[in-house]
């Protein structure tokens, strides 16, 4: 008898645990958690905005994930997140894959994509590059900085994953096609942080980076565009002279929850504009 009671208790314990675990699976009635994912360029804005938002709306928690623009879009389309972050436009292919869905896009700010080199290369005299030179580097025709008047060092060409918004803008400018292949690439990186770290670790690298990520180790070169040297500076991006720029967007499905609506209004509102500026981008409002 004792054994029976013991076994009963044992079974009861685990059954309760499982019922407890699985009964709470349906979404909580007062669900107030918002999910955001996507571009690592937009991430600092949304992440910092979310911290501010939380002070005003303590009942809504906003979790932010990285991944890249492609991940931002597919997560929204797949209902994995409420809001996707994109540093490029939704592509034809992406629209086609989800042709039964409708999406809403809001623009937060603008950003320029800089062609960046390791600081050693910059200080050795490579301060300006033309579109053709960058193309030759990325297609593998130019392999040594010496050919461009720099030091005798092989070029570490850093590409980015293909769905990344930064790559779309940069490769579109360089090759005229946002998904062109870069045969000269030596490394492929993902997030802005990873790209920045790989270029900074090297003393002879070239890469593409949102201008907000430029620092003393990773220097943005000026572009020789239509006969003029154009620095990747905020002013040049704001005035539209700098040729590689893109909108920083958030994308949602057509119908969204009220808390998501609230957060988007907050993102587009006046309180977030200083965050955009502080993060190193161009506010548009």
């Amino acid at each position, binding site marked *: 008898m004792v*054994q029976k009671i013991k076994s009963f208790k*044992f079974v009861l314990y685990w059954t309760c645990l499982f019922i407890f*675990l699985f009964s709470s699976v349906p*979404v909580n009635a007062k*669900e107030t958690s918002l999910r955001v994912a996507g571009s690592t360029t937009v991430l600092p804005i949304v*992440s910092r905005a979310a911290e501010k938002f939380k002070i005003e709306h303590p009942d809504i928690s906003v*979790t932010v*994930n*990285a991944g890249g623009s492609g991940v931002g879009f597919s997560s929204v389309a797949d209902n994995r997140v409420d809001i996707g972050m994109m540093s490029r436009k939704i592509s034809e292919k992406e629209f086609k894959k989800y042709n039964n869905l409708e999406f809403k896009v809001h623009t937060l700010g603008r950003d320029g994509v800089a062609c960046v080199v390791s600081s050693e290369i910059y200080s050795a005299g490579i301060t300006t590059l033309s579109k053709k030179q960058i193309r030759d580097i990325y297609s593998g025709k130019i392999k040594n900085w010496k050919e461009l008047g720099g030091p005798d060092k092989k070029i570490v060409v850093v590409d980015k994953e293909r769905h990344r918004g930064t790559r779309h803008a940069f490769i579109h400018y360089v090759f005229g096609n946002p998904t062109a292949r870069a045969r000269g690439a030596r490394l492929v990186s993902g997030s802005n*942080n990873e790209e920045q770290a790989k270029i900074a670790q090297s003393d002879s690298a070239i890469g593409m980076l949102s201008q907000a990520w430029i620092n003393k180790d990773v220097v943005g070169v000026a572009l020789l565009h239509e006969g003029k040297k154009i620095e990747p500076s905020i002013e040049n991006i704001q005035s539209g002279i700098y040729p590689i720029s893109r909108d920083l967007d958030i994308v949602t499905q057509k119908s969204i929850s009220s808390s998501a609506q609230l957060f988007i209004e907050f993102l587009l509102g006046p309180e977030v504009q200083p965050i955009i500026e502080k993060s190193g981008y161009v506010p548009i409002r």
Partner: protein
Amino acid sequence: MTRIQKEKLFSGTLAFLTLFACSILAFILFAVFSRGLSALSWEFISSEATDFGSKGGILYQIFGTLLLMFASISICLPIALGTALYQTEYLKSSVWKKAFKIFMASLNGMPTIVLGLAGYLFFGKFLGIGVSWLTGALILAAMILPTAHAAILEAIETLPEHYQETSISLGLKPNQRILAVVIPHSVYGIVTGALLGLARAGGETAAIMFTATAFSGVSIPQSITEPVATLQTHILVLAQEATNPTALANAWGAASVLLGIVFFLILGAKAVRSRLSWEPEQ
């Protein structure tokens, strides 16, 4: 060269190589802790991460890792124990016994990233739990199932034959036998399996990075559909900022804590297992 000299040279070389192999662990410990301990402080452990992890602490990351570990072991353990008991106490057909072995082996050989992705599609998408700590815990439970199962199975199978014989001759039914003989005497195996499973779950990154975690804005989850932050994914993000010194210092700090947790569990499992083998036969 004489035979003895040759022998000495041989064993000397081997000794050197063995020492080298063992010193790898010392090197890893030194590399991680010498960099991590300077970042470690009570404040680091007890405050939340700010500025994308490059400042602040790892409070919620520790919480998330522990939550995933313990949730996954509580899901895994009854399944592992039940499977092992069914296999040893009820299953008669040798074909099915073989089939169980093959399926456990295929689960064990499954690369964790594949397990994570397939698990997300089933638990996250099909069952609708989404990217959440529960999805992660279920995936990790599947991942550590073979580990826990193997340890429990070994403990049950190595029970002295006469235990079973005695219980049968006493006329005990299978359920009585399980409760009176099998479980009490294989409890060390169960604990070992649980600890090893916990250690494996705590060290896993690939299976949970798309399925259970979020990068920022995470605190204690309020419902089972919310993601957590974990030490593993935190280190993953910070490792990619390999040139930012404060971020890197935090990554080493988080790695020290993670190593500490995992080693504690493995050493625990070793201690329990050595007690198992010393248990005097009655």
